């Protein structure tokens, strides 16, 4: 198998000193019979080796499409992919699948959302792991078997020898996700995409899987993009967070900065929709009103304005650019940022009017706890 341009670890054309991943203004549009869906609409970021980026957003925000688009896993037909993805300095966006195949599995790997559907039901687990070992590392049977065994132990699966000969349906969801992780890590990728890796799992298993991912990432000095809808998941596990809304990054900041000094009303809304342990029981969780916008005809102006309690006339007409905040590396898209004088003023104006400029009711009076439980 010839390894061209960006072949294996020793491949030419790549600069090991360059940033591991640099995404520049990537756009992913789907042509459908109803119009063009702008699922990802101009996203940029940089990721260093061994670092973790959290991508957070509601379902429909484009976060899953973003990760698949970067990796190049989307179908070609009716999909328009623009922008640049520099992997170790080489732009991989236009590369044909034949060349990307040398990168997939060996350099970049992905852990999918639902372990119930991401393992082949009719193939033994051992085969599913060794497949990429044969393909990329050209191992012989014995080596592949030993490596698979080691991988299964490293992801914390008991009795790995026996598991190799079992089928996915014989394992629990958590165990299956561990298998999926083992498959992803088989060839020692430098970049791991984890696409909502715990959404489909029991709450008790979620933390185990996340901790496992974090531990493996540290051990292997691997970069990771952790995609999730849950700010709580990324809070302690990422270096940076990009909040996505309607195909765009609306706030991007180092993790501690985002939580201490968020600027974007959407981030604030996301955060207040997570239950916290120190809340009194029956505290009413804030729900973001409305639905994510239609990506075929996105709203004019700020895409979050129709659901935002800060929204002013300006937000409905003018789309805010990505603005740099005072902290380096912190950017956001908002005319009336949270915590700023403009933002405070906008909020109090809407409070006085009882509604935002887009008609979202804005009240300050929290619902009595007794009522909230019933609503």
């Amino acid at each position, binding site marked *: 198998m010839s390894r061209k341009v960006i072949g294996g670890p020793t491949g030419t054309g790549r600069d090991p000193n360059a940033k591991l991943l640099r995404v520049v203004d990537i756009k992913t549009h789907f042509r459908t019979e109803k119009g063009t869906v702008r699922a990802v609409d101009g996203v940029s970021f940089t990721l260093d080796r061994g670092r973790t980026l959290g991508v957070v957003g509601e*379902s429909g925000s484009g976060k*899953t499409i973003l990760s698949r688009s970067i990796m190049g896993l989307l*179908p070609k037909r009716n999909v328009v992919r623009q922008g640049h993805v520099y992997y170790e300095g080489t732009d991989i966006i236009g590369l044909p699948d034949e060349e990307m195949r040398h990168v997939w599995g060996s350099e970049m790997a992905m852990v999918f959302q639902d372990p119930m559907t991401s393992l082949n039901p009719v193939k033994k687990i051992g085969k599913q792991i060794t497949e990429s070992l044969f393909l990329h590392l050209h191992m012989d049977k014995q080596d592949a078997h030993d490596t698979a065994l080691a991988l299964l132990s490293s992801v914390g699966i008991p009795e790995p020898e026996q598991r190799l000969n079992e089928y996915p349906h014989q394992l629990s969801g958590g165990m299956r996700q561990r298998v999926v992780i083992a498959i992803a890590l088989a060839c020692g990728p430098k970049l791991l995409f984890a696409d909502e890796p715990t959404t489909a799992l029991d709450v008790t298993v979620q933390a185990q899987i996340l901790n496992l991912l974090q531990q493996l990432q540290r051990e292997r000095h691997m970069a990771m993009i952790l995609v999730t809808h849950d700010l709580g998941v990324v809070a302690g596990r990422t270096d940076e967070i990009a909040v996505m809304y309607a195909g765009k990054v609306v706030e991007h900041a180092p993790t501690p900065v985002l939580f201490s000094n968020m600027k974007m009303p959407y981030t604030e809304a996301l955060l207040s929709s997570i239950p916290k342990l120190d809340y009194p029981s029956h505290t009413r969780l804030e729900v973001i009103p409305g639905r994510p916008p239609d990506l075929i005809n996105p709203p004019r102006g700020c895409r979050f304005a129709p659901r935002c309690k800060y929204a002013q006339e300006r937000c409905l007409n003018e789309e805010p650019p990505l603005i740099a905040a005072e902290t380096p590396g912190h950017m956001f898209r908002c005319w009336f940022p949270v915590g700023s004088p403009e933002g405070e003023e906008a909020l109090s104006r809407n409070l006085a009017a009882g509604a935002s400029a887009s008609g979202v009711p804005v009240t300050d009076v929290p619902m009595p706890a007794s009522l909230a439980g019933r609503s």
Partner: protein
Amino acid sequence: MPEPSHRGAPVDAPGISSRPEIDAPAGGAREMLELTQLADREVEELQALHTLDPDQVPADAVKKRLGPLFWFAAGWFLLIVVLALAAPLMERAGFLPDPTKAVKCANPPCSKLGILKQGYLLGTDNLSRDIFSRIVWGARVSLLVGFSSIFFGLVLGGAIGVIAGFFKGKLETVLMALTDMFLAFPAILLALAIITFASTSNPGEEPRLSRQVAVILALTIVSVPPIARLVRASTLVFAQREFVLAARTLGASNLRIMVKEIVPNVLPPIFAFGIIGVAIAITAEGALAFLGLSLQPPNPTWGGMINDGQKFYLDAPHMVLVPCAVLFLTVLSLNLAGDRLREYFDIKESVL
């Protein structure tokens, strides 16, 4: 009988996620297919959101088209129907020679294309009979048998299906076991047995039924089990819907619910399948006629013409090829139309 896919084989293997539809849509739903193909859940969600906001979608973008193939098929079928209906008129007007009598033809079978007047359009057969005329009159048999047997099959099978799907329990088990038994037996043998026993008699006695009626009866009986299964499946879906519950809480009787609530909902998709059913019935009539069990000679039937023509391959291939082509095109057009309509209805249903 070679139309395996039509009989709606059940594909429920235990433990496998059963796929709702086993026949892939032939073409029209391809767009939908592509959509899901490029989609993760996420794009699907977007689509769903989009359909929820009809204001934002230009009306013409959502409207589903039946496509040119549908209209082509419908056109051919209409032509056959019009010719079949107009046959007596055309004969009286002198355009169509008697299909059972010889026309002028020096050396039969004649394969020359002649003018429409006095026949010969498609040549003549070995007995100097005008093939065009025989095709037109044969169409009357095919259409009559096809439509009436499916009509009665729909009434009977529909009733069984609705009752089985509505009442469930033991009644359903028994009814479905019966249909299973029928389905296990080759349909053509069953039809053949029915015709033999219904239309012939002991020596010296009058036939019980005319051939035509016997054929319709046989095909009706054969069509009941698959129709019953199909109707039962859709009834099961609708019987759990809110409007049925609502009617029941209003005190409607079972009969009233079945007639007023279930049947109108089950009908449109079944109608589309009914068209395909007519295609199958026409095929089956052709098979029976081919075996000499439909209308008796010298009356023309398409199947009979194919059988006759087989003896004259060398001299007059048109004798067999013409009825083959006509039957094929007619069945194809019905299948196409039915398939398109089925997709059309499915889409409408999903909007509901």
